[in-house]
């Protein structure tokens, strides 16, 4: 066997030999001059080996053309994990795969699916734990990339409305939009003229297929608004304060003058909940099966509709409650009070989780967007404010409106609608997860009566408005999420599918105790009790079993491990550890100083005295 490197080859001989051994038998239809090594091959270089010594040189233009072919979004720089490119397959005809390697993934999309904050460094831990964490991170990255790739399969595109140069979209009337869009969409714009029993509150079911409306003078109706098929229509002979669908379109909660009533879709009264009296506002938390009611007596009551029990009745101690909204991200209830504060409630805690002073006068309306990032409030001081809910509760933008908004609603894609008297204003942001900019209205519309209820229809570009003249269904292009997830809420589901979904949803009903500001808190490490446990264990045992044992030098060869040399070796290790410690503490100090320094200011001569 020869071992000396052959001259004239830039490839290590051993691999060459292997290669020669593995050379495929050549078929008669194959080219005579099949390339044997990367150096000798004419045309595009071929990758022959797995270990990546001869890397495939992709021509740049292929990549850019692919970019333009697949997506116009920015591309990810290649992930280091996916560096292993498969060998370009040569087909029988000799054609090469024009798009070798894994499909590229747009950065923005992949970030959307990312659940781990990679900026946080992994903690110092045992190698076993650390390797586990690393594996988990790698897996997470892979799944997010895969999910991002699946974005290609989404069928629908969101709607939009753009004016010509200089044309203000707010000037565009509903009639113009109806004229411009297709017949099916035009049919979604309608007015129900119901002057007799108004003003109306309304609610869309979670799938966006059904609409419930309740007039102040007792008129309650539910209909499939897409097909315009009426499910039931009754008059409860009592003032209706609010109306809400429960988990599906079959059950309907109506806050009447005295008590809370629950009807089915035939209009048959199923329950009269007397524990919830004089209710003004209703909210349904679909994943917890909780119906939150705010009452005139100042109580916030949570009713578990799956078992029919009152989970919690919290006294807000702020008088009559008439402004309520839920945060769909964490199921926290926001209550607006007459002193200008908004309080955040969870059924697990008797006190509010947070109180935010939002307005100088009382709070008139609240809305929280679907990502749980922004809260819009309007007050008696005619202000409309948008707050950031991620931690500090700071106002992001504010605007004074001539009349002040009485009703607010966020759409799935972050559009904000406000009802002011008989006018509806809609503002839009830049993208899906950005706050709406309040400078320029996206759409406006004047109604035939004063607004009494507002809701964007889920999964349809429609805003439902209940007013004193009846119900108006407005077209708002770009409001809704175009692609629904059928396992979550499917507008086209059959009865059987709904029943199956109901069973699944009940099985994974989240207990009310888990409602808190951060819904991901359950997945975090419980450091406090861990440390407490460790402390107790040390106390019990009388020593720390996980403490680092002092270095004990191993005896070396005969004669080499005199006491002096042993001590010397020990000393060496100890010194090294000490040096490491000092280095670390210096580094920490430096970091602290850098943090303390105000950014952007010029360095001053006095900085050296800063400790």
């Amino acid at each position: 066997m020869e071992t000396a490197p052959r001259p004239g080859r830039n490839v290590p001989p051993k691999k060459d030999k292997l290669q020669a051994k593995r050379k495929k038998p050549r078929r008669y239809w194959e080219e005579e001059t099949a390339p044997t090594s990367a150096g000798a091959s004419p045309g595009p270089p071929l990758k022959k080996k797995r270990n990546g010594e001869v890397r495939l040189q992709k021509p740049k233009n292929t990549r850019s053309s692919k970019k333009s072919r697949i997506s116009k979004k920015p591309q990810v720089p290649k992930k280091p994990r996916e560096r292993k490119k498969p060998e370009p397959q040569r087909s029988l005809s000799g054609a090469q795969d024009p798009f070798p390697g894994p499909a590229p993934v747009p950065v923005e999309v992949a970030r959307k699916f990312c659940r781990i904050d990679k900026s946080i460094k992994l903690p110092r831990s045992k190698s076993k734990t650390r390797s586990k964490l690393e594996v988990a991170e790698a897996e997470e990255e892979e799944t997010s990339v895969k999910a991002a790739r699946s974005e290609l399969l989404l069928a629908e595109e969101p709607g939009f409305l753009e004016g010509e140069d200089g044309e203000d979209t707010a000037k565009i009337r509903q009639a113009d939009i109806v004229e411009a869009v297709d017949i099916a969409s035009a049919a979604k714009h309608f007015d129900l003229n119901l002057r007799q029993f108004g003003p109306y509150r309304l609610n869309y079911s979670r799938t966006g297929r059904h609409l419930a409306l309740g007039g102040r003078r007792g008129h309650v109706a539910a209909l499939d608004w897409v097909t315009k098929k009426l499910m039931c229509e009754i008059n409860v002979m009592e003032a209706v304060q609010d109306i809400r669908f429960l988990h599906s379109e079959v059950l309907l909660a109506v806050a009447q003058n005295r008590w809370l009533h629950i009807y089915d879709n035939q209009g048959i009264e199923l329950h009269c909940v007397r524990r919830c009296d004089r209710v003004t506002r209703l909210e349904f938390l679909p994943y917890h099966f909780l119906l939150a009611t705010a009452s005139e007596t100042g109580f916030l009551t949570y009713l578990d509709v799956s078992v029919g029990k009152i989970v919690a009745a919290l006294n807000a101690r702020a008088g009559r409650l008439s402004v309520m909204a839920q945060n769909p991200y964490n199921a926290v209830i926001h209550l607006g009070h007459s002193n200008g504060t908004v309080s955040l409630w969870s059924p697990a805690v008797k006190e509010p989780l947070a109180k935010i002073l939002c307005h100088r006068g009382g709070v008139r309306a609240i809305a929280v967007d679907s990502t749980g990032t922004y809260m819009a409030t309007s007050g008696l001081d005619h202000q409309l404010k948008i707050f950031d809910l991620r931690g500090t509760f700071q106002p992001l933008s504010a605007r004074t409106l001539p009349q002040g908004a009485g009703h607010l609603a966020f759409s799935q894609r972050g559009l904000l609608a406000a009802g002011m008297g008989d006018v509806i204003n809609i503002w839009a942001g830049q993208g899906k997860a950005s706050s709406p900019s309040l400078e320029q209205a996206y759409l406006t519309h004047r109604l035939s009566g004063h607004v009494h209820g507002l809701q964007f229809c889920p999964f349809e570009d429609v805003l439902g408005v209940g007013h004193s003249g009846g119900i108006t269904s407005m077209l708002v292009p770009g409001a809704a999420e175009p692609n629904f997830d059928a396992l979550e809420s499917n507008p086209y589901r059959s009865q059987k599918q709904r029943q199956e979904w109901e069973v699944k949803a009940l099985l994974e009903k989240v207990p009310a105790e888990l409602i808190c500001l951060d819904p991901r808190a359950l997945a975090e490490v419980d450091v406090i009790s861990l440390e407490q446990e460790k402390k107790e264990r040390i106390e019990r045992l009388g020593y720390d079993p996980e403490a680092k044992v002092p270095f004990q030098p191993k005896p070396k060869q005969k004669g080499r491990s005199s006491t002096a040399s042993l001590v010397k070796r020990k000393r060496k290790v100890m010194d090294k550890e000490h040096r490491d410690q000092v280095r670390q503490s210096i580094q920490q100090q430096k970091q602290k100083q850098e943090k303390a320094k105000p950014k952007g200011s010029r360095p001053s001569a006095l900085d050296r005295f800063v400790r």
Partner: protein
Amino acid sequence: MKVKMLSRNPDNYVRETKLDLQRVPRNYDPTLHPFEVPREYIRALNATKLERVFAKPFLASLDGHRDGVNCLAKHPKSLATVLSGACDGEVRIWNLTKRKCIRTIQAHEGFVRGICTRFCGTSFFTVGDDKTVKQWKMDAPGNGEEEEPLHTILGKTVYTGIDHHWKDPAFATCGQQVDIWDEQRTNPICSMTWGFDSINSVKFNPIETFLLGSCASDRNIVLYDMRQATPLKKVILDMRTNTICWNPMEAFIFTAANEDYNLYTFDMRALDTPLMVHMDHVSAVLDVDYSPTGKEFVSASFDKSIRIFPVDRSRSREVYHTKRMQHVICVKWTSDSKYIMCGSDEMNIRLWKANASEKLGVLTSREKAAKDYNQKLKEKFQYHPHIKRIARHRHLPKSIYSQIQEQRIMKEARRRKEVNRRKHSKPGSVPIVSEKKKHIVAVVK
């Protein structure tokens, strides 16, 4: 004005005929799936509860022996065949699929001390109290023929155990010494002793096939190399080791079942500290056998229970017991890693599932997907206190339960005393000895 409204064609979302499957378009956008963590947690909780509901591990009991079952052997080639030897000298061969005894041999007078199959599965060996080693054919004798061993070796002393080499026609017996035999000869090739005491069991290493381990009544475990005439090294423990078992996937790892209620997993290169001390039994551990994956092993104990331990955990993940099962003397993990067999004092061989809540039989792809998903969820949330409590909960017979409590109290008292002693003596004079090192008396080379 440019306008586009979201307008779906229902034909794309509704199935065409009733015979079609329903269309389920998916969108994995996290904003459409809120409360991801709490919902997964609840699913994990449900999965854990269901696992406990479906935990029915006991499959069958094979009865027929007329005395306690003393030893078991697996067939190397047939999953359905298992051999057992009883205390009255009877050997039975069982068919597990039919759950029937297919052959009975009166092999010895007195106990059948050991039984092992040849690697090819054509014959098996037994040793008994009558100082003989017998080789038998696996197939039953033809019509009219008498049940006779292929070979019989008359020894001078009682043999207490036997194991066959995994590749060569050689086997090893133990008694007063470890003998290595060639199948063709009537005298041992070599016999090895170290100390003077009776050796309980001898086991060949399945990977490094020339290595053997034995354990003796004088509390030691001795390792031998077949190619040498002398033993390699030995480790002396606090109490006697009943048997050892080699890890089938890692050549130098073995686990010893000890009289002091514990099992010790050793790395044979460093015998001075066991890799893990497995403690949960409340009486002497009599037998141990590895799963073919090498990740877990099962142990049989005098406390009338068998337990399954992961190799890297000190506590058991599972305990099996029934009202009628007495002291379990021998245990085997089947070669497909799905079942466990144990032979006990009251003449029965019991068949258990290795994974208590596993569904037997063919799974549909959806079942499999659901199972995998639930498994992953259980893993993800296994440290949450509520889930951990449910997953760990086992019903135990009162005798075992009260024994555990008692031993916990005793251990706590011992620990407290040691802490007090350390407090009241000169620093360093009462050293801290780890649980792993506590039970090792010495290592001799």
